[in-house]
């Protein structure tokens, strides 16, 4: 008998790429891919968390060609994907490059092969942050994020004067930009006292639960 399927209609080609996995889904049993996605490699981690397959990157460099920070990075976006493919964990995670990403998403918008480098970099940063409380992140970046999150936890909102002061304390760069403070004050752009929201207990609950969820996820 002649095959019935496809007589005068469009045949979907057989999926070879692995079925898409929704974000957060950790099992990939539906996938036809034989690529490693359960092991402990960086690629497997990225795939488990995001459903993105780092092996898709074919190193065209379009991400790095459009990256505003490429000129300052040791590892450009396409290098990041390459190092994941090669599982060079130490080399990739210890450097500053990951933290120079501005998440402007230009790479993701233009990636021809839908690798979503911005999301991949986010995932790696989260991983570094979680593994040792941000110790892997460069000092000034760590200081910024710590001050920022502490502020939210304490007040529910960002109180920029306090944020800047906290950041400066942590980095020790007390005097850079210090000249801007009077101008900011004069223009009414800096409040001197923080606003605290009423539902602070809610905010603390959110922080605690989210931190706990991360730890749970780590345990097998």
């Amino acid at each position, binding site marked *: 008998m002649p095959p019935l*399927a496809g007589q*005068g209609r*469009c045949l979907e080609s057989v999926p070879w790429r692995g079925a898409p996995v929704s974000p957060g889904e950790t099992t990939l049993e539906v996938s036809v891919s034989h690529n490693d996605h359960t092991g402990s490699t960086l690629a497997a981690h990225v795939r488990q968390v995001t459903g993105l397959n780092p092996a898709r990157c074919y190193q065209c460099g379009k991400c790095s060609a459009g990256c505003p920070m490429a000129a300052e990075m040791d590892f450009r976006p396409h290098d990041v994907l390459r190092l994941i493919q090669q599982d060079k964990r130490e080399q990739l995670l210890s450097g500053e490059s990951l933290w120079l990403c501005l998440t402007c998403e230009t790479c993701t918008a233009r990636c021809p092969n839908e690798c979503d480098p911005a999301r991949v970099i986010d995932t790696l940063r989260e991983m570094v942050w979680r593994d040792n409380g941000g110790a892997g992140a460069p000092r000034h970046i760590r200081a910024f994020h710590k001050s920022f999150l502490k502020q939210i936890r304490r007040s529910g909102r960002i109180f920029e004067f306090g944020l800047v002061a906290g950041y400066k304390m942590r980095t020790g760069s007390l005097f850079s930009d210090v000249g801007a403070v009077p101008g900011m004050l004069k223009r009414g752009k800096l409040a001197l006292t923080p606003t605290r929201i009423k539902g602070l207990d809610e905010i603390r609950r959110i922080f605690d639960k989210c931190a706990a969820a991360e730890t749970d996820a780590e345990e097998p």
Partner: protein
Amino acid sequence: MARIGVFVCHCGENIGRTVDCAQVAEACGSFPGVVHSVDYKYMCSDPGQLQIKEAIKEKGLTGVVVAACSPHMHEKTFRKAAAAAGLNPFLCEMANIREHCSWIHEDRARATAKAIDLTRFIVEKVKRNQPLVPISIPVERRALVIGAGIAGIQAALDIADGGREVILVEKEPSIGGHMSQLSETFPTLDCSQCILTPRMVEAFQHPRIKLMTYSEVESLEGYIGNFAVTIRKKARSVDDELCNGCGDCQSACPVKKIPSEFDAGLGKRTAIYVPFPQAVPNIPVIDRERCTRFKAMRKGKKKEVCGRCLKACGREAIDFAQEDRLITEKVGAIVFATGYQLYSIGEEQPREHLSGYGEYGYGEIPDVIDGMQFERLASASGPTGGRIERPSDGKEPETVVFLQCVGSRDPQKGIDYCSKLCCMYIAKHTMLYRHKVHHGRAVVFYMDVRAGGKGYDEFVRRAVEEDGAEYVRGRVSRLYRAGDKVRVCGFDTLSGEPLEMDADMVVMATAIQPQPGIESLAQKLSVSYDKSGFINEAHPKLKPVETNTAGIYVAGACQAPRDIPDAVAMASAAASKVLGLFSNEELERDPCVAQVDETTCSGCFHCERVCPYGAVEHLEVRDRGGNLIKVIAKVNQGVCQGCGTCQATCPSKSVELLGFTDAQIFAAINSL
């Protein structure tokens, strides 16, 4: 009483590794009606087939079941073996214990159990098989070739030279296709028109080729050997009998600024026009969308305006009143050769899953052109007479940047595949440019250079080594206007450095896509296509020029991106298939078709409504006195493809698919 023989194949290790074949043979031996059951390493080998033949003779088998691979592989082999031993071949069937069992399972015990079940299923069916005789149908030994680019021309010439008549249909006013637009061809740099035009003339003059330009296939009926095709001959508005191609009408036409399709929009043409000087046939056509007279007519003006071509024509060949004509032709085989178009980077896209390149300016930067436009710039017959001039101001560009893979290998824009020709033609472009502009820079941004083909890689190397093309490995992120230049933001992945440069002109190797409207034509012809619109071949390796509709073949870039040598090779292959088909006066075909029981059919014609092939006809049943008793369904066995939809639909169970009757199928299912 059935006497069935079961033959279990190990297929080397393919089946034997996962399935205990000896155990399967032993188990099958105990099925009711099975009188012979053996296993063997390679059933398809000569000794294997011999076992089947001998068993048929010695044990007087009434049916044979071979438990082996897919029937797609070896059903023919085993049926022939059965026939050689005197058994009707349709009493021999296969149980697929390879693709359906050993290849997809790991647990040996469970796979063996499944193999036994699969074989039992077929044994029960074969017990109820009836001998069938192949159907003979006559062959109309004329061919239709759709599309008269290089593939269509080649196929038509080969079939015609083989002694058969060909109707060559082309939707454009001239034959020649894209090849007529090219300047030079890789990897030899010979002039495209110089090698093509003799073939065009040959096709035009061939006594067995009937050329139908400015025509399209309207509909198709029938089946292999017996197609009836209706062709729409679009109104040319010029009488092709009277016209002598003098060109006076073109000179007289006042509408002179229409972007020429042949020059990829870089040149201009008139409203009555011959697309290019060597066009075949050399008969103009009136573009009714742009002609002043037709525009006025559409606006409902009574007065006849313009008509300068009419006055200029000395032979009264202009015919404004001409209408489309529908012509029906009988053919036995069809070659599908409709070719390609280039992907446009614009915001508007012909298919929903495609998107344009906003990062490259959506095609709105004037000095960003595509590969075909560069061909026209480089061509001696082009709008610049072969001088490389950029479109915005006619300046000779001193830096030309070439981008490969624009659209191709870009799933985000909707195209996954490699367009295959671009690596080669971009290398050619760099050479042509450097040969014409010695001081100019030719910079190519590429991802990979894919130059598999005789003399191909050498050609690319020559572009780099001898003609000074600069190759940069990286995809460009953005193009934008910077003064009168185009800013190119790229990255050199080999040196690891960002690379920004200003170009005078950018040439993009945009992806190869099937012609617009290919889906609707494929639907008319009942051939399948992939999600990009390319026609599917029947088998990617073994049936590269057949489609899955018998009698329809495919050649050239409508099947996948093809360069000239590939397209020509495919065309000749398709032609040889057509000639092979035409070497017989009659065709044999599979008798597994539907049959209506005249006594029980109530004439509800559900079957007619569901039949995808239009195979159900009406039969008037009359008594001896000629009085009409009832009208019932009848299946045209030439058209029926044996899909079984009618059988599943019939409320009175009056349709049976021969070889797959309800009795056979239910018995098989009940055995599980």
